[in-house]
């Protein structure tokens, strides 16, 4: 296990993504993309919902143009980083 994966935010995000991909969390690595994991557009929208619920944050994401949303979904690592940013920004 890499060092980044030891923090709880990372672990939780990976658990959410793994559940959507029907994989064990241990089989999801940070450099993978959602496409690598077989997560389609509906799976992505569900993952984002689960992330919002888990971290009590609001994720800016429009399914019409995922690449232009402020929320970077280009890889698992990018999603973890984006979630961490949002958790910090939206902590109140």
């Amino acid at each position: 296990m890499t060092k980044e994966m030891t923090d709880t935010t990372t672990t939780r995000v990976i658990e959410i993504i793994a559940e959507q991909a029907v994989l064990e969390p241990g089989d999801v690595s940070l450099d993978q993309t959602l496409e690598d994991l077989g997560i389609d557009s509906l799976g992505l929208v569900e993952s984002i919902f689960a992330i919002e619920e888990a971290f009590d944050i609001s994720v800016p994401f429009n399914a019409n143009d995922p690449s232009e949303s402020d929320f970077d979904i280009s890889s698992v690592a990018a999603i973890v980083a984006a979630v961490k940013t949002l958790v910090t920004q939206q902590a109140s």
Partner: protein
Amino acid sequence: MRRVVITGQGTINALGRNVPQTLEAMREGRCGIGPLEFQDVERLSIRIGAQVKGYDPEAHFNRQKIALFDRFTQFTMLAAAEAIGQTGLSFSGEMATRAGVVLGTSGGGMNTLDENYRSVYEDGKNRVHPFVVPKLMNNAAASHVSMEWNLKGPSFTVATACASSNHAMGQAMQMIRGGMADVMVAGGSEAMLCFGGIKAWEGLRVMSKDACRPFSANRNGMVQGEGAAVFVFEEYEHAKARGADILAEIVGFAMTSDASDIVMPSKQGAARAITGALRDGGLNPEDICYINAHGTGTAANDKSECAAVADAFGHHADDLMISSTKAMHGHLIGGTGAVELLACIMALREGVIAPTIGYQDADPECALDVVPNEAREAKVGATLSNAFAFGGLNAVLALRKAP
């Protein structure tokens, strides 16, 4: 074969309280989308829609009727009154049994549901009004139309999400053609602009926060609207015999299922519906001058719809006009095909093509003549109206100039 013509049209939507107002707005390319106004709107992230503003139910209906008519039924009754009034038809005796009503809606009495859930869940009340069920049921509007105008023939409601009213009008047309009825009232209605209605759509993340821009490269989602449009379909000889003013002929209809995905559209399913409607109407691709697109302003629909049109029409796709009027009246979900049929009839009767407003940047994946931003004059002999629903259910109608 029995032919079917349209002899009455009525509407209420964000662009106007009747057909003349709506067509004027379409000619001018006016936008009916604005800030939503209803309880708890501040808890939504999507706060725009094409709402019927300044609408007062008491100006149209008495207390007893308001107790029974959800907003979607009220809209239907107003549109039906305009459409049936225009025909001058009245229904009694044999005539009543040969006339029916088929309407589309997706959410039915959504405002009634929302208000009453709020009352029992949020306010903790343990009693609801006795008419909640007859008010919210999806067939309430069709039933009230049949009661008000004494239509005793085939009558029901169709719910196929965004294709509901096209499916309803297609059914009505086939019933006249097949001999089940001589006159059918058909169309659709939707009134989903309430907290619960928009909150549910928000979840899907396909709604735009700022504008509906169909076919534009910078489009970012759909915007909901509300309202109704209702038509009177009549068997051609029946209409001719009484010297009716015929607005257009409805010549073809086809429906298909993608059988693939619950939300993502399929080019093949849409193309098969388009080709089917042409074939059913005895039309060649070259006969179609104008298509009123489904054109929701989502990335997925507009791209797939343009590809379907290109497939179905071949080289003629570059010669025809295709516009989405949703940027003006919003997406009326189960009522949308009905309001959009008004634009098709305007094209046939007045030679005016309603524009796709809000168009800013060309998208190579939507490289058709989308009539950007300004209405255009054109001689139109035949049109199509597309509707492609969530669930992959497609319904396309083909219209011709009045015979």
